[in-house]
Every structure is written in C-alpha cells, then in structure tokens.
C-alpha cells in the first residue's frame, strides 16, 4: 500500500464526464448511475439533498437509504442501500400508464409529465422498487403557529421553503394550491434533468458524502460510471425481474 495525494475530487471528474456527454447527440447518451455500497456511510445526505433540491412535500421521497444490521455482537456490520428510481430500461411503471404521462426518454431517464398525469397511481402499484410516491398535497409547516408580530410564524415559514415548487424538469410550477400539479401526481426521481441540462450533476451525487454515487453517460468509455460498471462487485436490484435498471450497485 502506498498513498499518493488525491489529485482530483471525483465530483470534478464526473462533471467533466458530464460536459463531454452533453456534447454528444442527445440520442447517443445513456444516463447511468453506480452506487458503491462499500463507500456509502449511510448519512442520508442524498435523501435530504434530493428532498431539498426538489422541494418534496411530506410523504414524497425520491431516494431513500435502507439500513440493515448484519451479524451478531461483536461481529456486527451495517449495510446501507440508497435507492433512487433505478430507471429501468424495461420499466414496468410506464407501460401501465393509461394516459402516457410517464415514459422513458431516449437517454434512458424515466420521467413523469405532471400536466398529463391524472393521478391514478397505477404506476406506483406497478413499480417493483417502490420508487414512486404520490403527492398528497401535505405541508411540513402544517400545525405550526401563526403569530404575526411575535414569532416568524407558519405562513412566512411556508413561503420560505414549501410554497414554491422546485423547477423540476426545468418547468416553473405554480405555487402549491388545491389541484395544482405536482399535487395529486405521481412523483419520482428524474435524474435531475434540470441540473444535467445546465451541466450540473444530480443533487444526490454532489451531496454524496461518501462519494458512493457515480453518475454519467454509461456508453462513454472514458467516464467514471463506465469504469465502475466493469467492476466485479457490480449487481442490480431485483435483476431477475428483467427490468434492466440503469442504476447499478457495487457490493
């Protein structure tokens, strides 16, 4: 073992990979993610970063981290498994949509058109990874006091962080109000397309404290994802279902 100074943060490397990908013809890009479980420290930063980036309301989550305890005292280990939408290349969720409000883009991201979705939740039932959640229109600030003049108060706090929906898909959604999308819709991880578009990595990637989340164009041989997909430790969730996730894991 010999240690040299780290020359470059993986995030910088991946962002270069991303820029390279964005210069390709869109139809030649295939987004992919590899999550290295050996590097995951179970910090949940990705979960919260995603919640914050997409201003997700209570009960809506795109990327959870599953925690398990393995072994018995004193030989105990803990395993952490982050689970975004794994962006199946053969997605069971899109086929069931009665109004084609959800589909796989040519770059392999599985997305939802909030304006089209009628909220039947068939896709939720159909996803074998429980990666979709429905927006029931809840508020984090519900039941907090409104004391104008003495305390900051509910309304101000609400305006502060949950009234305005995030610019998912680069769209400006109307302030959260009865019946306005994405309320009432199925919601899911979208690979942060709004960030990719401007040359930024997905929020769960940049916030990955353990640098366990690798993202890029999996067809680009120079990219870090491509490199990692060659690892003998690679596996995919529920491989047997033939959903062909574009998110893989390293044991």
């Amino acid at each position, binding site marked *: *073992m010999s240690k040299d100074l780290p020359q470059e943060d993986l*995030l910088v490397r991946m962002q270069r990979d991303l820029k390279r990908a964005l210069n390709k013809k869109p139809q030649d890009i295939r987004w992919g993610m590899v999550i290295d479980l050996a590097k995951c*420290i179970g910090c949940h930063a990705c979960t919260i970063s995603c*919640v914050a980036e997409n201003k997700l309301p209570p009960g809506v989550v795109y990327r959870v981290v599953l925690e398990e305890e393995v072994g018995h005292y004193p030989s105990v280990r*803990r395993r952490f498994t982050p689970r975004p939408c794994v962006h199946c290349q053969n997605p069971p969720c899109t086929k069931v949509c009665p109004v084609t409000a959800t589909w796989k883009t040519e770059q392999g991201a599985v*997305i939802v058109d909030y304006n089209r979705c009628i909220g039947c939740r068939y896709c939720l039932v159909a996803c074998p990874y429980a990666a979709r959640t429905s927006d029931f229109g809840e508020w984090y600030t519900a039941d907090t006091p409104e004391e104008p003049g003495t*305390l900051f108060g509910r309304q*101000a706090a609400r305006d502060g962080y949950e009234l305005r929906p995030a610019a998912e898909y680069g769209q400006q959604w109307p302030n959260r109000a009865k019946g306005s999308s994405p309320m009432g819709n199925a919601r899911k991880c979208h690979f942060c397309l709004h960030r990719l578009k*401007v040359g930024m990595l997905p929020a769960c990637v940049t916030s990955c*404290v353990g640098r366990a989340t690798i993202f890029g164009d999996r067809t680009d041989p120079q990219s870090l994802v491509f490199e990692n997909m060659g690892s003998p430790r690679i596996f995919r969730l529920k491989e047997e279902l033939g959903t062909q996730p574009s998110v893989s894991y390293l044991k």
Partner: protein
Amino acid sequence: MSKTNTNPTQEMRELIEAKIDRRGFLKCSALLGGSLAASHYLARAAQAMSAADWTALDVGDAYVHYRPENQILSVCQQCNTNCGIKVKFVDGLAAKIDGNPYSPWTMTPQIPYKTPIAEAATMEGSLCPKGQAGIQALYDPYRLVKVLKRAGKRGENKWQTIPFDQAITEIVNGGNLFGEGQVEGLKDICLLRDSKIAKEMAADAELVSAKKMELAAFKAKHQDNLKYLIDPDHPDLGPKNNQFCFNWGRLKGGRSDILKRLVAALGSVNAHGHTTVCQGSLYFTCKAMSDQFVEGKFTKGSKFYWQADTGNPEFILFVGANPYEANYGPPLRAQKVTEGLVDGTMRIAVVDPRCSKTAARAWRWLPIKSNGVAAVGMGLMQWIIENQRYDARYLANANKAAAMADNEPTWTQTAWLVKINPDGTPGIFLRGSDIGLPKEKRPMKEGGEWEFDPFLVMKGGQPVPFDPNSETAAVEGDLLVDTEVKGHKVKSVLQIYKEAANAQTPAEWTQLAGVQERDLVDLAREFTNHGKRAVADIHRGVSQHTSGFYNVLIFMTLNVLLGNHDWQGGLAKATTYNIDGSKEGKPFDLITHPGKIKTWGVDIIRHGKKYEKSTLFKGYPAKRPWYPFSSDIYQEVIPSMGDAYPYPIKALMFYQASPVYALPAGHELIKILSDPKKVPLIFASDIVIGETSMYADYIFPDITYLERWEFSGSHPSVTPKVAPFRQPAAAPLTDTVTVFGEKMPLSTESLVLGIAEKMKLPGFGDNAFGPGLHLKREEDMYLRMVANIACGDKPDGSEKVPAAGPEELKILEQARRHLPPTVYDAKRWRAVVGDDWWPQVVYVLNRGGRFQEYQKAYKNGQLTNKYGKMVGIYMENFVTTKNSMTGKPYVGHGHFMEGPVDVLGRKLDDEAKGYDLTLLTYKHITQTKSRTPGNYWTKAVYPYNTIDISPTDARRLALADGDRVKVISPSNEEGTWNLAAGHQKPMIGQVRITEGIRPGVIAFSLGGGHWAYGSSDVVIDGVLVPGDPRRATGVHANAAMRVDPVLKNTGLVDLTGGSAVFYQSQVKLVKV
C-alpha cells in the same frame, strides 16, 4: 316458504341443456375473436402515434440556482464542523444549500482558489443532511423576531414583547423590573470605569495574593476605592465589575471579538465558553503538550488539538470519535476515508462501545468498556515499547537541533531525565545545576535576564546537557534510562511511560478494556506497520471522562511514539489566516481598544489560578475545584453562581448557549437559574425560546448563521491554511432597530452595540479602533477582518489575493440584491475598507473565504503548515501544582486511572448499588443540540431518538423493541427533568434493540426530548403559542448523568482537563 317442490338436479340439467341458438353462438364467438384481434392491432398502431408526443416534454429553463448572481458563499453552522456552503436564492429566498467548492471541507481537493466564480457556480461539494436542511433552521416558524421580557416567574414561559430600546435601558439601568423588587443594572454592577485606579488596584491586589503586601496596607492605600471591590478583604477577587458574567456556547471569530470587546469594556474577567462540555480535555491536554520552554518556564501552550491528516494515512485508529456521523465532520472527513478504504490504500479501526456508522465498515471494531478506553491505550503502549515498535530515531532527539538533523519538524521529551521522588513518583526534570553544571545568563525578549539551567539526557552512560530550543547543538539521548546521577535517582520519560504501561499485565489491560488480548496485539501490530502514516485520532469518547486529561495524553503519546506530527498522513493541526490585524503589515488593527480598563481578579470558574496562591485558601478540599490547567469550564459557571463561590454574580448574559440542555446533570442548573436571588438578572441572545434561554429575564432575537457574519476558523484535519467565514446570505428575519444612529436587524451585534452606546463604553462608536475607524455597525469590524484575510500574513503584502475584476464586482452586487440596506449597502461596504482594498475584499467575499490550494499544503511528505515545535509528554508544571480538592500534586505523565471518581478522587460504586447499565450518548448525523428540532425534512429520516440496548440486556430486563422505558440514576431517582414553575419532563424513551452495542451499555443520541425550542406551549403577549409535538419527540437523558456527590449541583468532572463527564454514569431502566 316455497310453493312448488321440483327436483333441483333435474332443474340444473334443464338449465344446462337449455337449447342454444346455433347462429347466435357463432355470431358472438366471431365477434369475440374479432374484437380481441382489433384491440391487438390498435395497440400496435398506437405505438407509432403516441411516440410523437413521448418527446413532448423537454426540459425548460426555469432552473436558476446555477447562476452566480443567485448564489452567496458562506459557512454552515448547523453543527460546529462549519462546512463551506453555497446558498442559492430564488425570488430573494434561500432555495437550496450546497457545498462551497472552494472550501476544503466539501471537496478533496477543493477547486483552485483562482477559479472564476462564474465557472464555480455550477460546481458544489457535499454537505450532510443537517446542512441541507439549514433552510428550515432559517425559516423556522418558532423563530423570535422581537425582544421578549418575562411576564411570569422564571421558567414559567410567559412572555411579553418589548421594544429593543426599552430592553437595553432596563438591563443597563436596572430597577424594579419584574415587580419582584430592585434589580441592579449593568451601570451599577460595572462600577469601576477609571483605568488608572483599576491599574493600581490590580497591581497591589496581585502583591497581596503573592503575600508581598499586607491586606491592611492595601486597604489603607486604596481606602477611597474599596467600594469598587467585590470584597475588600479579598482584593484578588477583583472589582464588582466581575459580577457581570458572560457565558457562551458556540462562538467563533468576529463575534467573539466584538463580544469579548464588550466584556473587556465592562471591566469583567468573566467571559467563559463551553469547551469543557465539548471535548475539553482534548484541548487542554494538547495545550499542556504544546507548552514550550521559554525563558526558564514551560509556557505558551496554545489551546488547540491534533487530528489525523485524514486523507493520507494508511491506518487510522479512531477512538471515541465518529467522523461518519458527527465529529468535524462527515463532509470534511468521511469521504477521505471511504476513498481509501475502497481503493485499498487505507484501513481504519474503531474503538467504541457502540457500533457507530464509522465502526460499521471498519477493519476492526473494538467494543470496549466505557471506563476501559485508557486501558486500550496502555495495552498498546506496553506492546509497542516491549517490542520496540516505536520510531527510536525520532524519540532520541532531545532538542530542535537534533530534530532538524533528522529532518523531523518536531521533537519530544522521551529521552529527557526526570528526578524520582523518594516515594518513587516522578518529580521535576534533572537540571544541570543538579550535577554541578553552571547556569547561564540570557537576555529576555521583553528586556531583563533569565538563567538557563540545562536539561539532561543519558548518552552512553554519561549525562549530556542540552537546550531544548537550540538549533545548533544537536543532542540525542538513550530512551530507556533508570539510574542514578550524582545521587539523584533519575529515569527517562520513556522509562516512566514504560513503567506506567507495565503497571498491569497484557491480560489485565485487555480485561480492563473488555476486549480480547488478540485484538490488542493485532491492533498494535497494524498501528506500527505503517511508519509515520498511522494515527490515533480521538475525540469525545476519550476526553469526556473523569480521567479525560490522561486518557488523551496516553493516546497522544502513542502518536508521539510513531513520531507522526507534521508528516503527511500523520497528525495535523489547524492553520488560519490572521483576521484581527494583530500581525505586522495588516491593513486594519482591530485589537486596539482605546480607553479599555485593566481587568483583574479570580474569575467565577477559578481557572488559570492556583488555589493555594489565593487569599481564599483555607486548606483542602476547596469549596469548589480550581482549574489551573484549563479554561472555559462550562459546567462550573452556573453551579459556582449557585454556591456564590468565589463570589455572587449579579448579571448573566448568555450567547448561543444551552448549558441546561447540553451539560450532564443539566437539570441541577435549573434550580439556580430559576431563582432570581441566586442570579438577579439574566439576558440571553437566542434565535428561539431555548431550553436555557427560557429561564432568562430577557431574550434578544438573533439572526441565524445564514443571515450573519462570523469567522469560523478551521479544524485540525484541514491541512491547508484557510480563513472561511459566514456573511449575510439570507435577508434578516428579525425586526429593525437603530443603534449609534444606524439601522440594523435585531442581532447579537445590535445587542452589544446597544449596551455599548447606552453605557458610553470605550472602544465602540466613533474612533473605536483609533482615529477615523468607527465601530457603529457590524461591518465596521467584519469587513475589515475580511480585508485582513485578503492581505495575507506576509508583512510585505506578497500574500495579497488578486483583485476582483469588473465582472466579479458586478456579481457581488447582483447576488445581494435581496438584502435590505440594514445589512448590505454597496457604497457603505466599499467605504468601510476603502477603495484600495475593496476589489481584494470582493474577491474573498465571492469565495466565502480564503483557502490555500490542497497540493500546497504538502511538501516532501510533510505538511506545509507545521506545528514545528516540541511535543511535550511530561508536564513538569503539573508535579509542582496541587489539586485544590485532594491537596496532592498533579501527575505529569499519561497513566491509567480508575473511574468514575468524584472530585475527591473516590471511586463511585453505583454499579454495586444495582445501577447495572452504563449510559452513553452519541450524535446522530441529523441532530445537534439545537437548530435541528425544526428541521422537518430530516425528521423523516430520524423522527425520534431511542435508547439503544443489546439483545443480552434486553432479554435480561424483559424488554422488547419499542418498549417505553424510564432512565433513572442514583442522582435522579425520579428519572425526570424538573423544569421549575411546576413543569416536569420525564426521561422516557423507546427501546431499540441492536447487536451493535456492548452488553452492559446503553446509548441515546443527542437531540431528542426537547421541552423548549418550540416543542411546548408558551404564552406571548397573553396569546398561547402551541408547541409542535414533532419537536418534542425522543428522550434527552442528560439529567440521568451522575451528579458529583461532593459538589451536589454539578455532574462528574475531570479536575485536570476540565471535561464534563458524559460516559461514566450508571443507570437503571424502568419499563413504563
């Protein structure tokens, strides 16, 4: 009743045989087939049709976070790691927080400092979940926006909002403020304002305590001014001004400068922080270790500590440290470790009774006994010394010259000779004069002379004298020496450690530690297998014990045995750019304090002073402990007020402090704080009604870390030289007030300036820093500090940062378009630092601080920013100082101490009394002591904390997962928080059974069981403000931690390092 009775079976037959029309049947079967075919065909056809609008939704341009003009770079303070952050704004509101890519906290290596901010705008480093959730700490519905004055009894949580000016007037002038009788205001407490009188009295008081002046003589000389003293019979207690006490929890540069400036101007010595609740002994052991031999004394040690250069060791032994969940901190350290673990260049082992997330993936997890942490250290030391696996070459160097010859940045005392007392205990160093060598006169830096009396090592059977600081006369010595020199029994320091390590057999050490002998040997082998690229990295789990100081000293000595200080992959220290301008060549000197009066006297926590040297000396034990070797003893502040020792306090100011919630046995403080007779006036700066500020008479709303300035400094594991800082990012939420004729938000700064203006204190307002340099607004100090950073530390100015170009100047303005003039005004800001410095200042502001390139922090396998001095492991000052409680001298070297003990050094036997579980506490990544209760996002990840227990104990106690249990202890048999004003909060939590904890030990994470901070109802202006149950979940068991049986109102303490003890309380669980 049926009327007919036909045979059912026959009917069935009829039914089935009912003749069917052939044609009809054919028709429909055809139809059936047809429609199926049709639907199939349609489906195929459809694919084409719908394919068209499958690309309908293309990604729009509504996402604006990535634009530089929508970002302000600052520093997180959800926890004290202080990661660099990038706050992104949409419509003037903070929309997202990410890592500042210029900051080595969030990337390794961080991006080059010269990267244009437009380019950096699309880059970001990682933050932990708390950091991400900071927006909810900012926009917290329960945040205060107006000054609150209590409208009921202390702690009753009845409040009224009052104008800022009224609050200041009342605090300064006093009066019958609460209808409970007269309360002295600051103007009457801080009586002594004449610097000449102060100077003289201070000097003479010094003489009195040094027994060089008679008390009577003193009284006679100062008879007109005795009125200024707390107690004329004890002039060394200082002036009445000392009866004003300032107590802070979390405080960083900038704010600390302005607050300490206030206390100094008020003439009080009482300004105390929270270090000892945090990792006190870690600081104060390292302080003692960094004492240098200066002009005949061991002194000038700095309050700091070492950590691993986390990215570069081959092996790290984490002891009582949890960098994946807590510590300083996940974004800064975790990634450096995981990287190495996976590419096989690093291994870690974790010594912790609990399988922390750090331990979860470690090469080895050693689940030790809580009291056994030092035993692990001694076991390792024994093996290493026995097998000579230490760096003999390094250890032999007795002084600087020898170290230089070996290209070693530091040297230590292993070879130095120590005189052994008749009773066999090690005493002071053997000196030249002891063996008849002459002393040598030398000039003092500040003028005058001192006598140099050389130290000695043994070399080839001969004592060899040396000067520790000599750069020319290299001296090396034998390591293991036990002999007699000129009738003096002497031992080398390493010999002393060897004997301490041999005090027990390997089997006994492992037994004390509660691990397998094999584990220790494997560990020792691994630890010594990587030369200088192995480190023992320790934190609270080591320091917060009654033996904290020596625990730390043992592990730090293990590092010394490897000689890893200042080596890449070894031990590192924090290095920052000077901000206060006290260095030569800086643009602004912010230390000068015209008209400041001399402060003197024993302070309320009796630190840095020797009991026997004070006029209060009345034999042993003292009424309460004195702390000669540590400061900022959090757990001493309020209990000392309770005991009025050494004198009563009349006014107490809290800043960002919650000792009640934070301290072990914090419930004892409530009794004192809720009694106006004990502390007549309390005012606090807080962002909400906190667990401690709820006992204040006045609460001044502060602005959060996202709205304010603060110079956050660095951490030992950050090897580059840095100067990060918070700057106003979000617009302030508090009311606007006017001080010194300037409009500004309610904040700590306006509180300080308000008091200063009202009392006309020196060093504030016009010409505060000298002619033309006023201090009327926060930026008058803070922007000048930024200028000092921009300038760098080279007197010739060669370290100056580049000037911001026109584009960067424009971006600075645009990015602050949402800030009101009460905070940001382009012209005003520019004027404060002047046109010459402005472009440089902007360059730094735009990057959230100044950061040396990662690559430049290393050179030829060593750190660039070196400690570069002697690393002491034998504290001579200790053996010459007596413990104020036992009257025995302190021990000068690392050794194992039984625990837990009370302040008289007697071992507690609670375990024998049936308190069968040791209570531990730790930090979950989503929680801190405060700020996080309102982070609803992270609540989803961790809705409540639990009481973690091993299956073995659970079985024994017949507990199932999720059972509710009460924590009771010998000093809290009701197992409850007595909140005064008739309120109670029982310590009841849910059991979580986990394999990941040592049997006999239970643990709860910090951050649960709140009773304030928006978790329970309060009344403001007669209106009931309901608490939010989400903020009250979980359990906070600090009140179950052991109260010292002698002190009675304080938790267990480490009398040497000052630590408050968190991990040595025996408790019982009662199912409820």
